[in-house]
């Protein structure tokens, strides 16, 4: 069998019907193009979520009070007062996989400056908190140990608070009031932007945890613990050690349920990644359907073409073409249609993706694997949908085919 000749014959046959060949390819072009675009959008959003999440620190670990049972009554975890400062100290002492740990107490309310006010949250933390949550100090300084011990009325403010209360004036050295407690601003946090869930990470005030505990909330417990693992690979170990330390300091017996929860940022990253994976799959599947429709279009045209070219097939058989030659010709025609269509579709898809990325500034990622995959799928479609019409053509009887009207 001479494959080069078969390809030439098929190419000539397609050339005779350029417009129809193009229309047939259009289905594949659109199908492949949309697969490429959809996968690029899906992958892009996954990557941007991952980037934002790791911007928050992939080593981040939270511990917060969990739901507890008191005499058969399940209590919500928001009122739980089970976490103490001693827990933090114990973690600091007992957990080698933890590099930094900080208590966290929160309150929300109005921050007031003169006649201006702004609703925000105040976080009571220690000095290590900035490192744990990857906050930078834009200007000024953090708390001193003395300030923490003496419940000093000092704070750092985030960019959003600065913009809304101070405008262009320098906030450092000025005081804002939070729940009627005047707090001297000693520093400004560097800008951090939104997190993966769209929360403004700059809309906050940070004060020593003692200040928030004693002066603002008047509590002795803490609301949660933020820690960071020494490295990303030690995440698992860190979670285990914190759990162990907390169980010990909460005096839980073996078999008792945890009265707290430990979560890590990398778990969250995984969760969001898997959500966007599902989304990618969904988008891919939808555009895959249009690819399938394109394939059926090829089959339809090839099928019609076999009937329309019955006499041509008869002639080819009579001048010495074998059934396998005819089969190959029609199969190659449909493969050429789908592969050409695929190449054009991939090109258009990449162009459309770039245009979208630059005009709408969407995060897009084109992976090699998605390009290769769609190309392979195209060829498979050509073979799969071309096979039946090609078989039909090859099985024609030359005498009947020659007399076909």
């Amino acid at each position, binding site marked *: 069998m001479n494959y080069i000749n078969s390809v030439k014959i098929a190419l000539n046959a397609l050339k005779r019907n350029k417009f129809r060949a193009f229309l047939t390819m259009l289905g594949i072009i659109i199908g492949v193009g949309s697969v490429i675009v959809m996968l690029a959008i899906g992958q892009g959003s996954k990557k941007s979520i991952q980037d934002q999440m790791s911007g928050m620190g992939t080593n981040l670990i939270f511990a917060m009070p969990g739901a507890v049972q008191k005499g058969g009554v399940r209590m919500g975890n928001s009122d739980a007062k089970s976490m103490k400062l001693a827990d933090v100290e114990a973690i600091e002492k007992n957990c080698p996989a933890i590099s930094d740990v900080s208590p966290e107490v929160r309150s929300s309310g109005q921050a007031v400056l003169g006649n201006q006010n702004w609703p925000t949250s105040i976080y009571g933390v220690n000095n290590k908190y900035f490192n744990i949550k990857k906050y930078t100090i834009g200007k000024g300084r953090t708390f001193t140990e003395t300030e923490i011990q003496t419940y000093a009325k000092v704070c750092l403010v985030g960019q959003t608070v600065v913009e809304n209360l101070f405008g262009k004036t320098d906030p450092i050295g000025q005081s804002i009031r939070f729940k009627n407690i005047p707090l001297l601003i000693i520093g400004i946090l560097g800008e951090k932007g939104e997190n993966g869930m769209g929360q403004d990470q700059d809309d906050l005030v940070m004060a020593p945890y003692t200040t928030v505990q004693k002066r603002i909330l008047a509590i002795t417990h803490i609301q949660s613990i933020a820690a960071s693992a020494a490295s990303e690979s030690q995440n698992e170990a860190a979670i285990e050690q914190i759990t162990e330390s907390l169980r010990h300091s909460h005096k839980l017996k073996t078999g008792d349920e945890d009265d707290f929860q430990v979560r890590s940022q990398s778990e969250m990253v995984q969760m969001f990644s898997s959500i966007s994976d599902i989304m990618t799959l969904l988008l891919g599947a939808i555009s895959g359907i249009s690819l399938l429709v394109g394939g059926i279009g090829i089959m339809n045209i090839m099928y019609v073409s076999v009937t329309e070219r019955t006499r041509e097939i008869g002639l080819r058989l009579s*001048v010495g073409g074998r059934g*396998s030659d005819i089969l190959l010709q029609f199969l190659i025609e449909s493969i050429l249609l789908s592969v050409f269509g695929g190449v054009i579709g991939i090109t258009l898809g990449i162009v459309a993706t770039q245009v979208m990325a630059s005009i709408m500034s969407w995060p897009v990622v084109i992976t090699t694997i998605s390009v290769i995959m769609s190309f392979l799928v195209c060829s498979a479609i050509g073979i799969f949908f071309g096979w039946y019409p090609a078989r039909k053509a090859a099985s024609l009887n030359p005498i009947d085919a020659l007399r076909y009207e």
Partner: protein
Amino acid sequence: MKKTIIAVNQLKKDFYVGEITVHALRGVDLEIKEGEFVAIMGTSGSGKSTMLNILGCLDKPTSGTYFLDGISMGELSKNELAGLRNSKLGFVFQSYNLLSRTSALENVELPLFYNPKIKSKERRERAEAALEAVGLSDRMHHMPNQLSGGQQQRVAIARSLVNDPVVILADEATGNLDTRTSYEIMALLQDLNQKGKTIVFVTHEPDIAKFMTRQVMFRDGHIIREEMVTNRNNAVELLKSLPLEELV
């Protein structure tokens, strides 16, 4: 002693249509030697088309033997028959059967595409030579719809010549043409025959059959008459004698 190209012995062909058996050929003996120009004649249903299909290796007989250029076709597979058609036979059809939107040259090249031994350069050269032989060297790149019926049939004849077959099988090759063009085609075939080509020409028109060297008459699946043409027509001379009105 001329070489025997076609030797057919007690050839029978039955068709089964439902429960009825149609005996299309009921034992035919025929021998065609190199350089002959044979007319196969008969009314429709006489078996002449079935005969041509078998001679053209497009169909297999129910019984009997058929030797083409010394090869017994009864023992060949479908693919071997295709090979035989490709190397030893040339077909000319009533309705030309040219590929549309394909140049005359490419149409003539077609049979050679199915011969893997022939490279593209040789293919092109042989197609050009064949078109020259039928007098269409100035029309090589024309599409079939840019050619007259007679020219299209010439392209088809060139296509049948291009693989240098041992015999050309023509099926009512002048059936779609007017008298004058028919004579032109006959002149071309007579010329090819003169140069040594063996031609088998199926027709039902007695005056067309007069251009050939031998006539074989079919009826009801038998050969009823076989005779040499005595006062053979010369197409070139007949063309000269045609009244001028026929040109319009």
